[in-house]
């Protein structure tokens, strides 16, 4: 090769700088919090702060945010996806169970995986999906027909496809999986169908299951005496929101959902372990290290399916490994991450079901708060004071941000017969009372006192999570279709845009070509914003 030809090839190589992704190694995932330009796991990092250190977009320039691109999805289903962004490529899910790879700078498509689904699909709350996980050059997807699928990150080709459970019995997967080491950790949905919940780990290379932790113990196991008779077989406790990973302690911390049937606990008298709990599992074996049950014997559908926020901070004058957890039941908790002990708890929204928490963090229930045939009015409502959408912790402000619902429901108690593949819920609460629709808010809490630092009130109740950034902004969305940026210190609105569709997703931020982007799903599209050039 002569020098001129060699130079020409070199120029071509520079020109053809590949857009294809680099490997997302486990080491890279461990350090995702410092990788500001990318968003490589559901909550941004294993500690699940949904925080981006990017600071190009600030309180003083956010008013210049403009739509950079829009990606429309051909669906009428709800879009709950959190996109992942790896080295310029965005991976997101389209409902019901499709995956799309886009150029993160332009929104143009590289490939799409379309899943053919059997009928009927038994899901409680829409054929939705909250996102993918990535390891190496593989993208992992849970499907509403309860399969886990590995795709080639460059082409979308199926590498393996395993059945996690039988979809005909009400099992489905809507959760974004979590990569831990060389495993894909994946939860299950079906708390309204009387499934027996579990959390699984699969070999990322082969799809072979490494371990399964049943969230309801079988007879003879610790905790099994919290279920009478055969109720454990149909007791629910699903795992449908992505958890967190404490690599130092080698524990996966994950939230579990409601016991089944939701609103009639007569057939399952007892505490119903490990429903509505934070569970900490040994990452290598799936064995239970500790648990904390927020609502023993829940009869209001108050899942603990929130994202656990892991923070190392001073507590009582000593450095401590903490979990911050704003629960659907209206209480905010701080737990010790080493043993699951309750450290602190206080209401963060109006609640009328408990006098407070005792020294162990157990609720002190008020009388007559259970569902009844004639209906019982209780705050928070059946969708909780918060729900699956993500909170955020910002290390600059040291505040905890979340979307809040202030509303009540009429909880009714009704039939509860179990038949496979049918709903097993024990009535349906009246969620929105026409005369009292309630309202929503984006709320900032002092995470160590639960004190409300500021409140950004919304007319309606939001289904969108929040993102906070190094620019001291909090991004959030509303059911009305507004996407907005707030001053993280004061809650003052600095920018908003009507996207014209309900926002039921979490925002992310990333860097492409040296520019900071912010993306969120609204209606049936992904909208991406950047500062006007």
């Amino acid at each position, binding site marked *: 090769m002569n020098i001129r030809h060699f130079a020409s090839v070199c120029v071509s190589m520079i020109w053809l700088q590949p857009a294809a992704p680099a490997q997302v190694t486990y080491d890279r995932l461990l350090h995702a919090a410092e990788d500001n330009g990318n968003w490589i796991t559901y909550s941004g990092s294993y500690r699940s702060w949904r925080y981006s250190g990017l600071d190009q977009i600030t309180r003083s320039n956010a008013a210049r945010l403009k739509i950079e691109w829009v990606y429309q999805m051909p669906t009428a289903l709800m879009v709950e996806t959190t996109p992942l962004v790896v080295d310029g490529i965005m991976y997101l899910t389209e409902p019901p169970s499709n995956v799309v790879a886009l150029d993160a700078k332009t929104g143009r498509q590289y490939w799409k995986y379309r899943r053919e689904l059997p009928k*009927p699909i*038994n899901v*409680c709350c829409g054929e939705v999906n909250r996102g993918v996980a990535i390891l190496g050059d593989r993208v992992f997807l849970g499907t509403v027909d309860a399969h886990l699928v590995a795709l080639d990150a460059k082409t979308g080709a199926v590498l393996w496809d395993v059945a996690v459970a039988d979809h005909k019995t009400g099992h489905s997967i809507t959760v974004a999986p979590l990569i831990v080491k060389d495993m894909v950790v994946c939860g299950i949905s079906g708390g309204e169908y009387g499934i027996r919940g579990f959390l699984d780990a699969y070999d990322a290379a082969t799809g072979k299951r490494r371990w399964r932790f049943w969230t309801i113990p079988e007879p003879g196991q610790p905790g099994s005496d919290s279920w009478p008779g055969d109720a454990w077989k149909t007791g629910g406790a699903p795992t449908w929101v992505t958890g967190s990973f404490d690599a130092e302690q080698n524990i996966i911390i994950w939230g579990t959902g409601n016991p089944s049937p939701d609103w009639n606990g007569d057939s399952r008298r007892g505490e119903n372990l490990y429903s509505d709990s934070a569970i900490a599992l040994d990452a290598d074996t799936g064995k239970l290290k500790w648990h904390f049950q927020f609502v023993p014997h829940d009869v209001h559908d108050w899942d603990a399916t929130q994202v656990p926020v892991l923070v190392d901070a001073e507590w009582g004058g000593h450095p401590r490994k903490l979990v911050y957890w704003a629960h659907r039941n209206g209480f905010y908790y701080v737990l010790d991450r080493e043993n699951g002990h309750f450290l602190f708890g206080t209401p963060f929204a109006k609640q009328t079901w408990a006098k407070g928490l005792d020294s162990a963090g157990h609720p002190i229930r008020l009388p007559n708060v259970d569902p009844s*045939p004639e209906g019982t009015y209780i705050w928070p409502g059946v969708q909780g004071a918060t729900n699956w959408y993500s909170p955020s912790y910002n290390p600059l402000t040291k505040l905890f941000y979340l979307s809040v619902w202030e509303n009540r429901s009429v909880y*009714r*108690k*009704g*039939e509860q*017969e179990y*038949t496979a*593949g*049918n*709903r097993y819920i*024990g*009535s*349906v609460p*009246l969620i929105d009372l*026409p*005369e009292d*629709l309630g309202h929503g808010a984006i709320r900032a809490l002092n995470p160590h006192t639960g004190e409300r630092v500021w409140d950004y*009130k*919304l*007319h*309606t109740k939001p289904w969108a999570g929040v993102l906070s950034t190094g620019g001291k902004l909090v991004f959030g969305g*509303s059911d*009305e279709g*507004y996407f907005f940026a707030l001053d993280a210190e004061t809650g003052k609105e600095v920018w*908003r845009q009507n996207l014209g569709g309900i926002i039921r997703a979490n925002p992310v931020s990333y860097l492409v070509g040296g520019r900071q982007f912010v993306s969120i799903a609204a209606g049936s599209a992904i909208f991406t914003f950047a500062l006007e050039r």
Partner: protein
Amino acid sequence: MRTLVLLLWATLLGAQSKDVAAGEKTFRSHCAPCHGLRGEGGRGPNLASGRFYHGSSDADLLKNISEGIPGTEMPGLFYMEDRIRQIIAYIRSLHVSEQNTGDVMRGAALFQSKGCTACHRAGAQGGRLGPDLSQIGTMRSVEHLRQSLIDPGADVQPRYWVVSFQDADGHEIQGFLMNEDTYTVQFMDLREQLHSFEKAALRNYKVEKISKMPSYRDSLTNEQVNDLVQYLSSLRPH
């Protein structure tokens, strides 16, 4: 042979009765809030009269219960077919006729003479301030219609809540809520004009969950109320 037929018949009856009992359980917890405990109706229509306005075959009922009825407040139910067929069996077992003894023609005349058309549309005529009643007979029970005349504030749909604020000259502006979000409101004023405003710019802005419809408790006789209810109940698609 006759014994065998009788046995089969008895078995069939037993299965039906089991379906009805199972269907009643589901009906009470999922359907009764709108349709009444015995299907007699409420905000939703009577299901016990044997008359259905969106198809009366089992296949129609299965579809309507499974998928809901577009354009109405009827949501879809999420049970599999066997459970829905139990609900249908229960509905078929009900017999509660709609109790009203009014006269449709007299009711139609009252509807005109009492000024109802100023706010309500029925067919080709009427105003836009209140609910369109052109098909109200398929949506509400007679008891609910009676309540709407006597105590209109008892069940007001958010669409008809009353918006009010003061304009720059201090005049009070009123209208009916059409949409509201955190920042803006859309409404129809009392002259049927549509408006959209940023709420932050409005003085003394409020939304009252009340009805502007007057009560006819004292201005109509019982017989006239029955006549009007009978007329309203007759308003169905032809």
